[in-house]
């Protein structure tokens, strides 16, 4: 079983890279013949990834959310899965490479660094932890996708303003759609992050005797949450729009990544498990 888990662990980056290559080829050439097969490839990749996560959970007796590299593989899955659903619902197919590449990065790091942990701290076996981590992860994939669409919005905005009608202009959906996709993903991310924070505030003080509100991850997530809150409220009130909102989303994403990295790798707190 371990061999099978290892095999899947190394197979997943290959699958993601192949899927990314097909999406990129389709983006570069604009040929319609790969329009459906690229989606099928993404589906197969997600199927194998889901199998990997299930087999891992059954064999090690806990869901793969107990350390940062387990979380990375779940994050890679969540990002591509969210994109897959988004592509199915909206039928906007030209943005795949920009999202899937994020999954590749997370999966490669996870595949290299992940270890087989059979015994985990009792505190990590709580059901509340499962919901806390799940909502945080899907929330983070939401803001990741929001930032990618925000970045694409800025690229297209710049191309149109500068009269550069290249690949970005020809292949991407229009600015309004990119803004809408970025905003909707940010709202989903924000709602789920709110859930994660609320559950965390209820559960963490009970679970960890050394709990502190000065925990770097808690502070980082709170800053990200406040930033998204300001951005979403301003957009809903009609005060901000377009470029300003997407820049805010990108800043929020960068702070979220930095805070995760800093709190996981540099500081030692009750919130670090690796």
């Amino acid at each position, binding site marked *: 079983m371990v061999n099978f888990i290892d095999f899947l662990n190394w197979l997943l980056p290959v699958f993601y890279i192949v899927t990314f290559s097909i999406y990129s080829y389709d983006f570069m050439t604009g040929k319609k013949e790969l329009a459906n097969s690229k989606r099928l490839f993404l589906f197969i990749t997600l199927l194998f990834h889901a199998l990997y996560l299930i087999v891992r959970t059954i064999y090690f007796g806990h869901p793969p959310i107990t350390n940062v590299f387990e979380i990375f593989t779940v994050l890679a899955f969540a990002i591509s899965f969210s994109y897959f659903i988004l592509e199915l619902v909206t039928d906007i197919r030209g943005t795949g490479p920009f999202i899937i590449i994020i999954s590749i990065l997370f999966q490669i790091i996870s595949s290299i660094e992940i270890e087989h942990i059979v015994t985990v701290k009792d505190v990590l076996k709580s059901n509340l932890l499962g919901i806390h981590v799940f909502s945080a992860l899907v929330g983070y994939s939401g803001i990741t996708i929001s930032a990618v669409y925000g970045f694409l919005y800025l690229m297209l905005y710049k191309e*149109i303003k500068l009269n550069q*009608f290249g690949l970005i202009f020809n292949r991407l959906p*229009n*600015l309004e*759609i990119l803004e*809408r996709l970025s905003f909707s993903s940010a709202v989903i991310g924000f709602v789920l992050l709110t859930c994660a924070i609320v559950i965390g505030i209820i559960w963490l003080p009970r679970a960890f005797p050394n709990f502190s509100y000065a925990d770097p991850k808690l502070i980082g997530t709170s800053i990200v949450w406040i930033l998204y809150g300001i951005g979403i409220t301003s957009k809903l009130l*009609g005060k901000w*729009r*377009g470029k300003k909102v997407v820049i805010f989303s990108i800043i929020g994403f960068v702070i979220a990544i930095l805070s995760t990295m800093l709190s996981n790798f540099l500081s030692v707190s009750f919130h670090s498990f690796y």
Partner: protein
Amino acid sequence: MNLLAVSINHRTAPVELREALYLGNEDIKSLISSAKEKLLVEGVVLCTCNRTEVYGFPFDKNIGHNDLQNFVIEKKSSFNINPEHFQSFLSREAVKHLFSVITGIDSLLIGDNQVFKQVKDSFQLSEEMSFAGFLMKRIFDFALTAGKRALTETEISEGAVTVSYAAVQLIEKIFSSLNKKSALVIGAGETGELAAKHLQDRGISHLTITNRTIEKAEKLAQSLNSKIIPFTNFKEHLHEFDIVISATSSPDLILTKSDIKSAIKKRNYASLVLMDIAVPRDIDPDSKNIDYVFYHDIDSLNIIVEQNLTKRRTEIPKVEKIIDEEVDNLFNWYNSLQAAPTIKNLRDHFENIRLEEIEKNKNKFSSEDQEKLEIVTKRIINKILHQPTIELRKSAEAGENTIESAARIGILRQLFGIDNNRQDEEKK
């Protein structure tokens, strides 16, 4: 195939001569009536803004391209048109030319898809006037197939290739749908009208026209069922529009950067698209530096037009391949319209039916009767086919591939489904 075609088009004649030879529906009808009397058994007259063409099968072999050209020239004798202004095509080349026209690769604007409808309309007119017969119908069936295939299997008609359409394409890269947007068109001239029509075709929600001469604005607004605002105070309403297309002949700027700044502020920085398709320009080009203002002039729109034209040019070989395939299909069908092979095909077809039925029913007869059955059925088939065979032989002796014999053979093949059966057998 003795199909003649003469064409006067953008490659062979200057615009004034093409204009002179432009034929309206009534002109075409009169031309067809004369052609039917003097020159052609069947044919089609095609006229678009860049070409006038006549296709047809002559009454006899002595009628050639020169007669057809002179016939067209006579119709417009007051203009200095001479045979050098024509291209002439015969048989396969004539068919190939027609297919190039309908697929848009022979158009001045490569991939122009309006020509497809124009060819279809011309053919319908010929049909109404009983000028398009059996052969012409088949040729146009194949032409329509080639045209449809070029549209669906290649990108020959993709992308905007006119400035006003490029403006709309660019607007659609900024807004997801025009059915909730409002647009102002400044200038009711030809360019403004075209841009307004494109916007309306794409479903713009509110269209408003303004023009220095209010009567012209009113006329255009009436034809497009849109609103007008007076030119004197349109700037006060500028912020109400998501899209502004300016196409006036004003020598000075109509909208300054400060006009735009004030409008975008009033719009609370909701995106504003400015398309300046006037020469000289109507809107201060410095407006492009204002956030959320998308300013584009004729030069930037020409970049899109050129890119799309280049893309269309790269599609030409694919369209030519389709044309070759469809020309081959047409000639395969045409070559089957000969008497000798048709007699054989017809006899084989009936013999197959006879054998099939005997096979199905032979158990119902005793072995002695089976022999009689064979003889009787053969005799019936021979009697049925006797008269058609004699008629087909007569056709062959009279000289094959006259229009009448080809039509007769074609109908016969169609009636008995000989081509369908052969295709089925080939597939098997």
